[in-house]
């Protein structure tokens, strides 16, 4: 293959997204460790301090970290406008987020008012600054790309869910647990607005690009996130002012989520090359889990089994969001390593050796093993929630912990591969 220098003018330095991607699995491992130590937390219900800390380790620590890193990587490429001071911004943001999340979840787990306030004081300005910076960048760009619209909605949702969290905390004098009526809105905007919209937007890029499928249909790209935004607003308004009709908006939201999952599975069936691919499997697991999450949510509307809420939560957060992001990382990290490596080598006047291909940057066998661990952890965790037997929870948490650490290790191999080859060409 004749490698050619590719333009990186809109691409931020590799360290910008990678610092977020490499930190994220540590938070996932921390969540698993917390469950391993407090295995009875799953049988106590959703509103215990441990469950709150665990949920936020996953949503803020793992999903949030990756998503903030991915926005910084994707946005400049999609809209052709780089973020201002990318290295400084990402360093500050990463430090504030990592410290803020750590303090916040520790405050939740220990019900420490001081740590909760300190964590919020670091996290909220960091996220607010990030949202404003990205919006300013979007404002400077004429791009109407569907992914950009989805990102704008996701950031708006982040603002709403952060605002609700702050308001509830201030109203309640920073006391936990927070089974407040507004918490439902916080979860809805977090799950469907922030996580959902961003994953939908990113999937418009990564599914066709890496899974060799056709593009999402124009109608879906154009209307899905707009409808999602509209229905989320209607749902919030009805929850606040006309609670009797909230169910209508909730069913509409469930329909939109189902549409996305089924559309993605259908596209995957249309893929042009049917080669074994671990990202493909992660995404199939993610979409299957999303459909099941809608089913268990629907069942929860008729059956009063308290564990159904937890099953839906595990399916959505671990089965859908974590699986999709885990699979995506196995394409994005090797791709970025390859892209930057290719350019560094070419800019130094070429090199006689060969640049590793994407499958060599993170070994396929290792990613496949981690997929098996992740799937087993998910299945056991669902079983553990159902049977409520503490030893089963411990085994599930143990598998989850190994899977999260393995993910971190695999991503680290990508970074080490980059440094190794740079040293070989005398640039390291």
């Amino acid at each position: 293959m004749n490698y050619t220098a590719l333009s990186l003018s809109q691409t931020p330095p590799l360290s910008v997204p990678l610092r977020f991607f490499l930190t994220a699995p540590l938070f996932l491992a921390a969540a698993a460790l917390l469950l391993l130590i407090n295995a009875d937390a799953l049988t106590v219900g959703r509103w215990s301090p441990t469950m709150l800390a665990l949920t936020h380790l996953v949503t803020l620590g793992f999903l949030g970290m990756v998503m903030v890193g991915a926005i910084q990587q994707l946005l400049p490429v999609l809209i052709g406008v780089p973020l201002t001071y990318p290295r400084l911004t990402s360093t500050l943001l990463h430090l504030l987020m990592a410290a803020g999340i750590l303090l916040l979840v520790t405050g939740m787990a220990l019900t420490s008012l001081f740590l909760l306030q300190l964590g919020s004081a670091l996290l909220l300005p960091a996220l607010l600054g990030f949202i404003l910076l990205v919006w300013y960048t979007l404002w400077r760009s004429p791009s109407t790309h569907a992914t950009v619209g989805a990102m704008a909605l996701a950031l708006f949702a982040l603002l709403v869910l952060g605002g609700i969290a702050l308001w509830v905390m201030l109203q309640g004098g920073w006391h936990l647990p927070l089974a407040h009526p507004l918490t439902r809105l916080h979860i809805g905007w977090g799950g469907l607005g922030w996580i959902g919209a961003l994953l939908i937007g990113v999937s418009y890029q990564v599914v066709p690009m890496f899974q060799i499928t056709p593009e999402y249909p124009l109608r879906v790209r154009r209307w899905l996130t707009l409808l999602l935004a509209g229905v989320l607003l209607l749902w919030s308004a009805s929850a606040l002012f006309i609670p009797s009709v909230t169910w209508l908006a909730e069913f509409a939201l469930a329909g939109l989520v189902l549409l996305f999952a089924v559309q993605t599975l259908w596209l995957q069936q249309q893929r042009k090359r049917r080669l074994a691919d671990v990202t493909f499997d992660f995404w199939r697991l993610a979409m299957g889990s999303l459909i099941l999450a809608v089913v268990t949510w629907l069942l929860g509307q008729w059956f009063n089994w308290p564990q159904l809420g937890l099953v839906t939560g595990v399916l959505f957060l671990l089965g859908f969001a974590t699986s999709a992001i885990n699979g995506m990382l196995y394409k994005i990290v090797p791709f970025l390593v390859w892209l930057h490596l290719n350019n560094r080598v070419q800019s130094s006047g070429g090199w006689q050796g060969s640049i590793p291909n994407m499958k060599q940057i993170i070994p396929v066998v290792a990613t496949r093993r981690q997929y098996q661990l992740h799937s087993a952890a998910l299945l056991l965790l669902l079983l553990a929630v159902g049977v409520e037997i503490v030893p089963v929870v411990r085994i599930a948490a143990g598998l989850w912990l190994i899977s999260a650490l393995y993910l971190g290790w695999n991503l680290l191999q990508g970074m080490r591969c980059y440094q190794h080859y740079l040293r070989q060409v005398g640039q390291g």
Partner: protein
Amino acid sequence: MEQILDVSALAAPEPLLRAVDVIKGLPQGDYLRFRHRMKPCRLYDVLKESGLEWETRQGEVVECELFIWHAGDRVAEEAARAAAAKLEPWQD
């Protein structure tokens, strides 16, 4: 003259590499008809920096088609624009 490059069955980063390779050897008077299953966001930067111009269209055979020519190459531009005009403009 029209040169066709269909990368619709290739995964990233192959489409980008193939496009760059063909573009490097694109002679005056020729334009490249680039067929892909998606809008190639990363390619636009390369085209801009290489002094190339293009039009993006909804494809017939595949989802997206780009018509690419050297800036200032009137012959190629005319032929590329005429071929592109037969397809619908790209819609994000």
